[in-house]
C-alpha cells in the first residue's frame, strides 16, 4: 500500500516534469491515479500510517490511510482516471504545458489532502491543489481577470483552516487530527468554514461567475467534482472528531439546504452551458452539507435511538458524494466534448449533440443529467431520496427547533431537486437531444474521451442498480434489509424496524422487465414506422423560429422575479431580460479587494513562473509556523 502510494506520487511528479509532452504527462497522471486507486482499495480493509515525520515538539507531519480516506480516494481517483484519459485527447486542442503540469500537481495535492493526518500536511496539500488548479485555469492561454476570484476564495478557505489549526494548537498543543476532540467550538467553526468555502456553498460561490465560461473543460470538471470533494472529505473527517455543537449543526443543515435551493434556482435559468453544471455543484454540495450536518446532529445528541438515523445520514452523504463526483465529472466531460466539437458557449448553440457530435457524449449528458434529476434507477436517485428521507425523520428529535429546521431543510431540498430537474431537462432537451440544424461538429480526437465517458456512464448505471453493493462498500451493511415481499438486501431502511424505500436495484429489475415487452413490440413494428419532419404548422421550421433555452426558463424568471431580480429592457427593436444571482453581492468586497491587488499580484506572483509559486507556498508554510509559534 505504501509502495503504491509512493508510486502514485512519483507518477504525478513524473507527469509534472514531462509536462512539455502533454500526452505523456497525462498518461503519467492516469497511471498515478491507478496506483492511488489500488492503494485506496487495499486501505479499505486495513488502515495504515504511511509516513510520520516529527517536525517539532508535538508537531509531526503524518500521512494515514483508513477506511474513510480509502472510500474518498477510490471515489476521487475514479474521477481522476477518467479526467486524465479525457485530457489526453483534450490536450490536442489546448497544448499549453501549464495544463498537464497543473493537473498532475493538483492531483498530488489532493492525494495529500486525502491522506493527511495533521493540519500542516493538510494545508500543504490544500495549497498545492489550489495553486495548481489556478494554474490550470489559464490553460487555454487566455488571460482573464476573473480567475483571481478563484484564488481569493481558495485563500479564504486556507485562512479559515490556518487559523482553525492554529487555535487547535493553542488549546490542544498539537495539530494532529488525533487532537481534534480537544478543540474548542472556535476551532470547529473555523475549520468547517474552511472546508465549506471549498465546497462552494452559498455565498462562497461568487467566484464561479465569469470563470466557468473561460477555463478548459478538464479544469472545470476538476474544480467542480474532485476539488469540492476535498471540502466534503475534510468535513466528514473532522466533524466526527471535533466537539459537537447543536447550534452549529443546525446552521450547517440550513446553510446546506439553502445552498441547494439557491444552486437549483440559479441553475434553472442560466444559459451558459458550463455555468449550469457549476450551479448544480452548489446544489449537490448543499445537500451533502445538510446530510453531514444532520449526521453530526443525530450522532451528537447521544441518543441511542438516533444512532441508526445518524449512520443513515452519513451513508446518504457518501452516496451523494459518489453520485455527484461521477455524474459531475461525466457531465463536464460530455459537455466539454460537445462544446469543443461545436466551439460554442451557450446551451442554445450546442444543440443536437446526439446527431451533431456523437451518441456517446449525448448519452453522457443524458445519464448524468438524469442522475442529478433523481431518476431511478441511477445512483443520484438513491442519494436524493436518502437525504429527503433523513430530513423528514426529524420528528424523532425531541426538540421542536431541530424538527422544524430539519423539515424546513427538507422542503428547501425538495424544491432544489425540482428546480435542478427543470434545469437538467433543459440541458437534455436542448443540448443532448435537440435539433442540430444540420450542423456538423469539427473533427476532434475522441478515442480516449469516449473511453472515459463510457466508463463513467456505465459506472453511474451500475452504481444505481448495484446500490446494495455500494452501501456495503461504504460500510453500512446494517442499512440493507427486506420488507414485505422484497427480499433482504433490496430495501434501504432509514429506521429499525424497517422504514424505508425500495432500492433502485429493485426498480431497475422491474423497469427492465417492463421494458422488455414494449421494446420487443416496438422493435417488431419498427419497419412500419414512417419518418417525417416534425409538424410545424405546415412549413419547415427556420433556425430563428426554434424555442430557445432561455425561453424555456422565462416563466420561472417571471414568477420568481423577486429571487432573480429579473429586469426587462425593451426598445423598439431590441428586448432583453436579465436575471441576477443576488447572493453574489455579499462577497463582492472580496472580489473587489482581489481586483485592487490583482495588478500587484500579476506582476510578482502570478506571472506564470514556477519559482514564484514555490516561493508562495514556502511563504505560506512559514506563516503557518509563525502563527503557531506566536499563539503558543
Amino acid at each position, binding site marked *: 500500500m505504501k509502495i503504491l502510494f509512493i508510486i502514485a506520487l512519483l507518477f504525478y511528479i513524473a507527469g509534472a516534469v514531462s509536462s512539455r509532452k502533454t500526452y505523456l504527462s497525462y498518461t503519467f497522471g492516469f497511471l498515478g491515479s491507478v496506483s492511488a486507486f489500488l492503494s485506496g482499495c487495499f486501505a479499505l480493509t486495513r488502515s495504515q500510517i504511511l509516513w510520520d515525520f516529527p517536525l517539532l515538539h508535538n508537531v509531526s507531519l503524518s500521512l494515514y490511510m483508513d477506511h474513510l480516506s480509502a472510500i474518498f480516494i477510490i471515489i476521487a481517483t475514479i474521477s481522476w482516471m477518467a479526467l486524465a484519459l479525457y485530457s489526453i485527447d483534450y490536450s490536442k486542442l489546448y497544448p499549453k504545458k501549464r495544463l498537464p503540469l497543473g493537473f498532475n500537481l493538483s492531483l498530488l495535492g489532493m492525494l495529500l489532502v486525502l491522506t493527511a493526518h495533521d493540519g500542516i500536511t493538510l494545508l500543504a496539500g490544500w495549497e498545492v491543489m489550489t495553486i495548481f488548479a489556478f494554474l490550470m485555469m489559464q490553460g487555454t492561454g487566455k488571460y482573464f481577470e476573473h480567475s483571481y476570484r478563484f484564488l481569493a476564495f481558495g485563500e479564504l478557505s486556507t485562512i479559515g483552516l490556518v487559523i482553525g489549526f492554529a487555535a487547535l494548537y493553542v488549546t490542544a498543543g498539537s495539530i494532529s487530527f488525533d487532537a481534534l476532540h480537544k478543540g474548542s467550538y472556535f476551532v470547529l467553526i473555523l475549520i468547517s468554514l474552511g472546508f465549506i468555502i471549498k465546497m462552494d456553498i452559498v455565498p462562497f460561490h461568487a467566484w464561479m461567475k465569469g470563470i466557468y465560461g473561460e477555463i478548459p473543460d478538464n479544469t472545470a470538471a476538476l474544480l467542480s467534482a474532485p476539488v469540492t470533494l476535498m471540502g466534503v472529505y475534510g468535513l466528514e473527517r473532522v466533524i466526527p472528531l471535533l466537539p459537537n455543537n447543536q447550534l452549529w449543526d443546525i446552521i450547517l443543515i440550513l446553510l446546506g439546504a439553502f445552498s441547494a435551493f439557491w444552486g437549483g434556482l440559479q441553475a434553472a435559468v442560466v444559459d451558459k452551458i458550463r455555468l449550469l453544471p457549476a450551479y448544480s455543484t452548489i446544489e449537490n454540495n448543499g445537500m451533502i452539507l445538510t446530510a453531514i450536518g444532520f449526521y453530526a446532529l443525530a450522532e451528537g445528541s447521544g441518543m441511542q435511538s438516533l444512532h441508526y438515523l445518524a449512520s443513515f445520514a452519513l451513508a446518504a452523504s457518501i452516496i451523494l458524494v459518489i453520485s455527484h463526483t461521477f455524474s459531475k465529472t461525466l457531465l463536464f466531460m460530455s459537455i466539454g466534448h460537445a462544446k469543443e466539437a461545436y466551439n460554442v458557449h451557450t446551451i442554445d448553440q450546442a444543440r443536437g449533440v446526439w446527431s451533431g457530435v456523437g451518441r456517446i457524449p449525448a448519452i453522457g449528458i443524458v445519464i448524468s443529467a438524469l442522475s442529478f434529476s433523481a431518476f431511478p434507477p441511477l445512483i443520484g436517485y438513491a442519494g436524493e431520496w436518502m437525504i429527503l428521507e433523513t430530513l423528514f425523520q426529524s420528528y424523532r428529535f425531541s426538540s421542536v427547533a431541530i424538527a422544524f429546521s430539519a423539515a424546513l431543510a427538507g422542503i428547501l431540498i425538495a424544491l432544489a431537486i425540482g428546480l435542478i430537474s427543470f434545469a437538467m431537462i433543459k440541458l437534455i432537451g436542448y443540448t443532448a437531444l435537440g435539433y442540430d440544424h444540420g450542423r456538423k461538429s469539427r473533427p476532434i480526437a475522441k478515442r480516449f474521451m469516449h473511453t472515459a465517458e463510457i466508463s463513467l456512464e456505465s459506472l453511474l448505471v451500475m452504481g444505481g442498480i448495484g446500490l446494495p453493493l455500494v452501501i456495503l462498500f461504504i460500510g453500512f451493511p446494517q442499512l440493507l434489509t427486506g420488507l414485505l415481499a422484497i427480499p433482504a438486501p433490496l430495501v434501504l431502511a432509514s429506521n429499525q424496524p424497517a422504514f424505508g424505500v425500495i432500492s433502485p436495484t429493485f426498480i431497475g429489475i422491474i423497469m427492465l422487465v417492463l421494458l422488455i415487452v414494449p421494446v420487443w413490440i416496438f422493435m417488431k413494428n419498427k419497419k412500419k414506422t*414512417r419518418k*417525417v*419532419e416534425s*409538424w410545424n*404548422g*405546415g*412549413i419547415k421550421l427556420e433556425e430563428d423560429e426554434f424555442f430557445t433555452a432561455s425561453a424555456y426558463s422565462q416563466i420561472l424568471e417571471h414568477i420568481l422575479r423577486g429571487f432573480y431580480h429579473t429586469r426587462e429592457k425593451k426598445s423598439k427593436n431590441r428586448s432583453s431580460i436579465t436575471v441576477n444571482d443576488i447572493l453574489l453581492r455579499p462577497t463582492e468586497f472580496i472580489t473587489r479587494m482581489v481586483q485592487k491587488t490583482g495588478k500587484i499580484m500579476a506582476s510578482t506572483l502570478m506571472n506564470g513562473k514556477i519559482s514564484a509559486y514555490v516561493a508562495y507556498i514556502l511563504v505560506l508554510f512559514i506563516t503557518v509556523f509563525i502563527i503557531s509559534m506566536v499563539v503558543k
Partner: protein
Amino acid sequence: MIRWWPVFGLKRRLTEQKEYISPVDLRQPKTGIFNRSLFVYIVDVGSSNALNFEISALESPQYNIHRFGIFLTDSPRHADVLLILGRPVTKMLEPLKETISQLPKPFYTVTIDDHPGQPGLNGYPELPNHIAALTGVPSPGQILGLLLDIAKTKRKES
C-alpha cells in the same frame, strides 16, 4: 354570485335526432377501422371562410358529433380524415402537401370546393386516398353525413 353552469347546461336538450345524408358518394372503398371513431383534421387552403363557419356550426350541440365518435383533432398526426376547405392558393400548396405527409396511415382526404369556377385559384394537386369531393358550401348536416359514411355508421331517426 356565480351560478352553477353545468346545471344550466343540462337543463336544455339541444341535440337533434336526424338522418344525415351525404350529398356525394364515396369515390373509394372504405376500411372498417373507423367504425367507432373518426378523427378529422381541418386545413383551410383558401376558402372564402363560409366553410370555416360551417365547421364551427358542425361543432354546435345540435349536431353533437361526438356521439358518433367523430372528433376534430388539433394535429394532423392524430387524424384519420383530412378535410380540405376551399381550393388552394398557390402559397398553400406546399403546406397542404406537408400536412398530408403527416397523416398516419390509413387516412382519407376530403375536399370541399366552396366556389367552383372562381378564378385566381389552383386546381387540387394529386391527393392520396381522395375519398370524396364536395362542391359548394355544404351544410353541417351534409358534412356530417359524409363523415358518417366514411365512418360507416348511420344514425337513423329514433
